[in-house]
């Protein structure tokens, strides 16, 4: 049966009515009381969950950033190794290999390491002051390639094999693949932890909403008796939990942002990352603007998840009551 609804919701979109419900009206007391022990407990739970989620997200952002840096470094450079071979002149082979490399499209620079550089590379293992003339030490040729438009490595490899049999091309693909796999694993684990934290948040909100509904049962009854629809009642609870979720999210997310900022500032000194191998590996603990934006978005997401979860729980409970 169709009935006339004198309320303003008639004819307006669902989104507009939702907006009207959450819109700030400073002088109005919230219909669902904002302060209670349960509300404080939920804010604390959401804050802890958001803090953990932010730490995880931050770690994922750092690992992804570092892996991307490593990969771009690796993909910008390939090497040709020229080994000494009986019956062949190493110097001639190096010169020929450099010529072949230079002629390949996509190559921006080619530089053959001289004997002194080879000696420096071997120094940690063989010690200093050693003459390499008597040793069959291979020579390296470092090739810079255009990122995104690398040369045809198969063709280059085939040409080297044909003209300089003692040369072999290493495009670092295996290392790059292992690096990507490791980074993907870390990101996957991070996302799984995020999913668990979100699930725990949703469950906390479900229980908190049920508790709030039980506590505010007289309010719900009065709202019904004065003609409020279920959507209106659910909207009031959604508004209540949106504020709780945003408060908790801001506290937890804010603490995490603060922690990353402090680590970014003093991390190098604290963990000895500055200039060390670890710094080269992890690239420091600075999230960058993008990382902080993701953390802020996460706070908004936690608020939204809290609000919509409570709305669904209230709607389902009211439906069951009817």
């Amino acid at each position: 049966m169709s009935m006339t609804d004198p309320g303003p919701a008639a004819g307006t979109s669902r989104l507009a009515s939702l907006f009207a419900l959450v819109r700030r009206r400073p002088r109005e007391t919230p219909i669902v009381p904002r302060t209670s022990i349960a509300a404080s407990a939920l804010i604390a739970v959401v804050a802890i969950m958001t803090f953990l989620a932010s730490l995880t997200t931050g770690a994922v952002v750092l690992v992804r950033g570092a892996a991307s840096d490593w990969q771009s470094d690796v993909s910008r450079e390939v090497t040709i190794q020229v080994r000494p071979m009986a019956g062949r002149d190493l110097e001639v082979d190096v010169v020929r290999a450099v010529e072949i490399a230079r002629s390949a499209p996509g190559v921006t620079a080619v530089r053959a390491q001289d004997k002194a550089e080879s000696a420096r590379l071997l120094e940690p293992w063989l010690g200093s002051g050693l003459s390499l003339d008597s040793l069959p030490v291979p020579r390296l040729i470092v090739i810079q390639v255009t990122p995104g438009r690398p040369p045809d490595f198969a063709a280059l490899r085939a040409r080297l094999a044909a003209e300089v049999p003692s040369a072999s091309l290493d495009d670092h693909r295996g290392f790059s693949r292992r690096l990507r796999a490791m980074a993907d694993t870390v990101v996957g684990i991070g996302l799984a932890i995020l999913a668990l934290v979100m699930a725990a948040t949703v469950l906390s909100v479900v229980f908190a909403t049920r508790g709030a509904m039980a506590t505010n049962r007289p309010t719900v009854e009065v709202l019904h008796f004065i003609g409020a629809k279920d959507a209106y009642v659910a909207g009031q609870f959604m508004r209540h939990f949106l504020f709780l979720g945003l408060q908790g999210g801001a506290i937890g997310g804010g603490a995490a942002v603060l922690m990353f900022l402090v680590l970014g500032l003093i991390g190098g000194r604290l963990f000895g990352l500055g200039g060390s191998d670890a710094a080269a590996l992890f690239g420091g603990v600075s999230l960058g603007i993008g990382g902080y934006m993701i953390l802020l978005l996460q706070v908004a997401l936690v608020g939204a998840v809290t609000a919509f979860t409570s709305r669904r729980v209230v709607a389902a409970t009211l439906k069951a009551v009817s």
Partner: protein
Amino acid sequence: MVRFENVGLRYGLGPEVLRDLTFRIEPHSFQFLTGPSGAGKTSLLRLLFLSLRPTRGLITLFDHDVATLDKDSLAVLRRRIGIVFQDFRLLDHMTTYENVALPLRVLGREEETYRDEVEELLHWVGLGERMAALPPVLSGGEKQRAAIARAVIARPQLLLADEPTGNVDPNLAKRLLRLFIELNKSGTSVVIATHDIGLMDQYDARRLVLHEGRIHVYD
């Protein structure tokens, strides 16, 4: 406005607490609903404000068969009914002003559009100085008047009051009755559930008497 035909009500598998109720409430009418304690007055009021559905019979409210209405439609219908509960049911965390304005807020009206209306009504029921007070600090009589003000603020077509003078002194009871009579003169149908014979004797109106679950109408 309201039509009951052979309406019966039972709770669960218990005996029928209301049996074969057949009566009408006409527009602009005034009636007392009375009967001994336990006769079913509150149950009948709950049927009238749609918080219960009958186990048998037909209830027509504002030309709608209530059995065919969905939940949202019932909510819309309830906006045309004002209810005064015996236990007031004011929301303790909201001021008297906010409690009285609640039906208008639920309708989605902006506060600027109803502030004067609510303040005027609060002055009329003698709560002009108590607008900012929270219900826990109001006296029984003040709560009663706040509950009545909340019930009538949206100008309902039907006003139901459950023992509205049960917690007030005779003078205030008289004033409240005058308030209900004024509302009735302005077009609202009024049903007052009471077992206060003194109150009923003050105004010559139709009486619906419940006895052992059956209704007897004295026009």
